[in-house]
């Protein structure tokens, strides 16, 4: 196990007492989830077929890392 400098040690949080508040703080707020209002497909091939059927173009958001997950 590595010796960790004192200032790098986790600050003492009363996780039991602060649990609900901390969980709520970390979770995204509604205004941070606006982008999820777009009805994202998650498979480019399925989106091709759906676009063909609907007579619409495809909008592809492609990132190194999944745009709906960790990027």
């Amino acid at each position, binding site marked *: *196990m*590595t010796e*960790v400098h004192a*200032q*790098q*040690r*986790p*600050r003492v*949080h009363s*996780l*039991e007492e602060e*649990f609900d508040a*901390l*969980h709520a*703080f*970390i*979770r*995204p707020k509604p*205004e*941070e989830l*606006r*982008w*999820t*209002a*777009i*009805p*994202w*497909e*998650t*498979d*480019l*091939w*399925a*989106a*091709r*077929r*759906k*676009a*063909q059927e*609907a*007579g*619409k*173009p*495809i*909008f*592809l*958001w*492609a*990132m*190194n*890392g*999944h*745009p*709906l*997950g*960790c*990027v």
Partner: protein
Amino acid sequence: MASRELAFSDPRVIRLISERFIPVAENCSPLQVQQDAKGEFFRKVAEQGHYAGRTVPSATRQGQYACTPDGTLLASINTREAEKLLGMLDQALQRWQALGSPTEPIPESYAPDPRFPGLSLYPHDGLVLRVYSRDLPRAVDTRPADWRVRAVNYDFAWFTRDEMLSLLPPRPHEGQRYAVPWPVVRRLARFHLLDNVRGETPAWKEDEVRAAAMMIEVVAVEPPLVHLRLDGTVLNVARGTWAVRPFYEKYPDMERGYHCRLYGCLTFDQAQQRFVRFDVLAVGDRWGGTEHNVRWDDLDPAPLGIAFELAGDVPQERIPPHANLWDYFGPPRVS
């Protein structure tokens, strides 16, 4: 990552994409290399776009593309800015009107490249969690007052049915206390106790998990529900040579780490054989940075929080974890 908050939270962008396009989001890292019809289609589109042919400073093809179902590019860009994205969408729609919709049939399926199992490993009968990471408030805050202060990132954690059931004792009774099995500890410590608040970062290697221990206590048994409490600590430290800015020089003797405490409230429904609550927190200090996690201006120790909760079983939440899935579900450490 900031494009979620900036470009894709603009109501004009949301409306235009939702109404006039079939929107799809995908990880282009596999699409750039996978040897199957979907990969070929992506490359056909991308090689008409903003990064066509580019190899320096990287060969990434990430960005936003509008195309026809047969792969004709309408417009593309890589931007976080709503106004620029709106311009690209307008251009795409004008070209779409000029071109018209292709009629060539698209095959229903194709033989996928087995090197990228992705969704095929989704644990339908297991445990799937949302994972959120965010900086916690600081006593002295020197961060710029921009998206970096508000940044939150997302990921998903997957556990097989066997791994999920390993969190329950055969005959639970109040006061029982036992260690969380190593495969679950390893999964959380290596792949999810990460500083990806501002951007993606590599998973910890096996030997970078310097210490990890998690315990579960049976708090109450109210058939069919079993209420559990999870607690633990993890210390992850990596040392080596790497860059802390994309495409910048690598420096030796770098260090990054995360030293956290975990606490969680879990409820298992024995009748449904699934968790109905899985709220877990990791809180501690992170330090250092990696090439893509945008910490070059924020390398000193500072508090980081990571929250876990149950995910929904909808397509938009069946997103594979960011990690390499072959390593993710790898064998547990023997020791």
